[in-house]
């Protein structure tokens, strides 16, 4: 397959966007990406969204967004892979360009979560409806069970979970698009309201509105436009059992392990080659397991790594979630995977401002659906 690059990016601010509809925010992000890339057309587009039907009563988002973006009659497809919908949308755009079928494709993601739907119930549709959700389990509950198992097996502590939130808020405070631009202390995290033991409110990513879009193109197009393209050197995806209880090991997300192995192989890189990583920290425990399952730290030591600051921007060992992550930047589900790519695009272009990882050349994005039943990983490299 031929080389594929990202040549433009745009996103809305993440947060409670009361004045804007799902169409407004998607079109805003898409126009910013198109303008940033400087393209006069796109050949096709993908819209990642998890549950627009439940959140705002609107499906068929491909056509809806193509219409409101004013790009009909191009092919427009909605992609759904629960919370990994954004990553999957980007992967579809990547594959379409890599295959030679198209030259310029928009990969977008969107979620409008604050319009009054029962968010807990909508998100729970990413788990096994009949054998998990039927029993009243919630997403915080599923990750809480992972956290409990991780604490029991590896001695991961409450303080270590809190360290993830503290670090991500510190990073998010420097991100103008983040929902929460305020720092928190470990004590605040550990005293926040219990949501699903042992996870508390500040262990959880928020309910957010937001959209993100990037323009994916062939190297030939990028050269003509004389842009600073960022090359996609790996795109991988893996699945696992839908129910957490069916997993081989509750503390390891096999889909992450498998997708990572494939990505490293495709890119011909190893964990130590990665300069920064955006991981799917829907809950603090998810960042800890992700940093282990991606191979940055040994299994069981992700909590210690977080606590010792090895994942901070300053430490440079492996800066994790420089954007603030889902925790602080916000988690408009379908937009998240694309927003992760945008963070890499900015970092690898040296345009991440106060959060810049000096000299960053290779970045990874890990986007996850459900309790880990889907995982999409991308590795990007500055040219």
């Amino acid at each position, binding site marked *: 397959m031929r080389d594929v690059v990202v040549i433009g990016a745009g996103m809305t601010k993440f947060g409670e966007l009361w004045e804007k509809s799902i169409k407004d925010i998607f079109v805003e992000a898409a126009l910013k990406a198109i303008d940033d890339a400087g393209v006069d057309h796109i050949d096709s587009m993908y819209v990642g969204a998890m549950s627009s039907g439940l959140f705002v009563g609107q499906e068929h988002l491909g056509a809806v967004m193509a219409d409101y973006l004013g790009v009909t009659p191009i092919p427009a497809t909605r992609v759904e892979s629960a919370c990994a919908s954004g990553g999957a949308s980007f992967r579809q755009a990547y594959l379409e360009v890599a295959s030679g079928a198209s030259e310029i494709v928009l990969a977008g993601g969107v979620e409008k979560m604050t319009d009054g739907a*029962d968010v*807990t*119930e909508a998100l*729970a549709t990413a788990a096994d409806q*009949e*054998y*998990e959700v*039927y*029993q*009243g*389990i*919630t997403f*915080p*509950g599923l990750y*809480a*069970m*992972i956290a*409990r*198992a991780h604490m*029991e097996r590896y001695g991961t502590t409450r303080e270590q979970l809190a360290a993830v939130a503290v670090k991500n808020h510190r990073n998010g405070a420097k991100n103008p698009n983040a929902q929460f631009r305020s720092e928190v202390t470990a004590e605040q995290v550990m005293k926040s*309201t*219990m*949501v*699903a*033991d*042992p*996870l508390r409110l500040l262990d959880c990513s928020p309910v957010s509105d937001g959209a993100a879009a990037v323009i994916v193109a062939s190297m030939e197009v990028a050269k003509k436009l004389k842009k600073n393209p960022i090359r996609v050197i790996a795109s991988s995806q893996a699945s696992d*059992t839908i*129910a*957490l*209880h*069916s997993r081989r090991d*509750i503390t390891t997300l096999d889909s992450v392990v498998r997708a990572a192995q494939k990505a490293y192989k495709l890119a011909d890189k190893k964990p130590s080659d990665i300069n920064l990583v955006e991981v799917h920290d829907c809950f603090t425990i998810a960042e800890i397991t992700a940093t282990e399952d991606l191979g940055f730290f040994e299994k069981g030591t992700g909590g210690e790594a977080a606590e010792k600051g090895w994942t901070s921007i300053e430490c440079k060992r492996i800066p994790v979630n420089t954007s603030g992550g889902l925790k602080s930047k916000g988690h408009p589900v379908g937009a998240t995977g694309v927003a992760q790519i945008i963070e890499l695009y900015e970092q690898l272009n040296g345009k991440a401002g106060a959060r810049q990882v000096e000299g960053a050349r290779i970045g990874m994005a890990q986007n996850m659906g459900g309790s880990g039943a889907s995982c999409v990983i991308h590795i990007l490299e500055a040219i």
Partner: protein
Amino acid sequence: MITARYHREIPQRYRLEAAKCSSCGHVSFPPRLVCPQCKARKFEAVNLSDEGTIVTFTVVRVASDKFSKETPFGVGIVELNDGVRVTAQIADVHPDELKVGQKVKLVFRRVQEDGKAGILCYGYKAVLA
């Protein structure tokens, strides 16, 4: 909830009916058409043990609207004595008393209801043995 959807799951929810792979012996709950272990497609019906152990658990304090009047409630992954794991609410216990490794028994309880006028939905829950 649609009544047909509920009705379809009754053998599993009421009686813990599972499918044992005729080829490798792996037990699937709920039954599947393809064995996740050896990919064979022939099964015999078996009933799961109703006794097991808590592998991990949480206490749900913020629930979906349907369950919001019952919070806080325990939910755990229970490994039944035949090795099969299920997710189940843990009833009749103060959440602070829950621990990994506790022995439990599955009992028949009302799990949810379809609003004020819809059908009542039953199934298994765990209680401390």
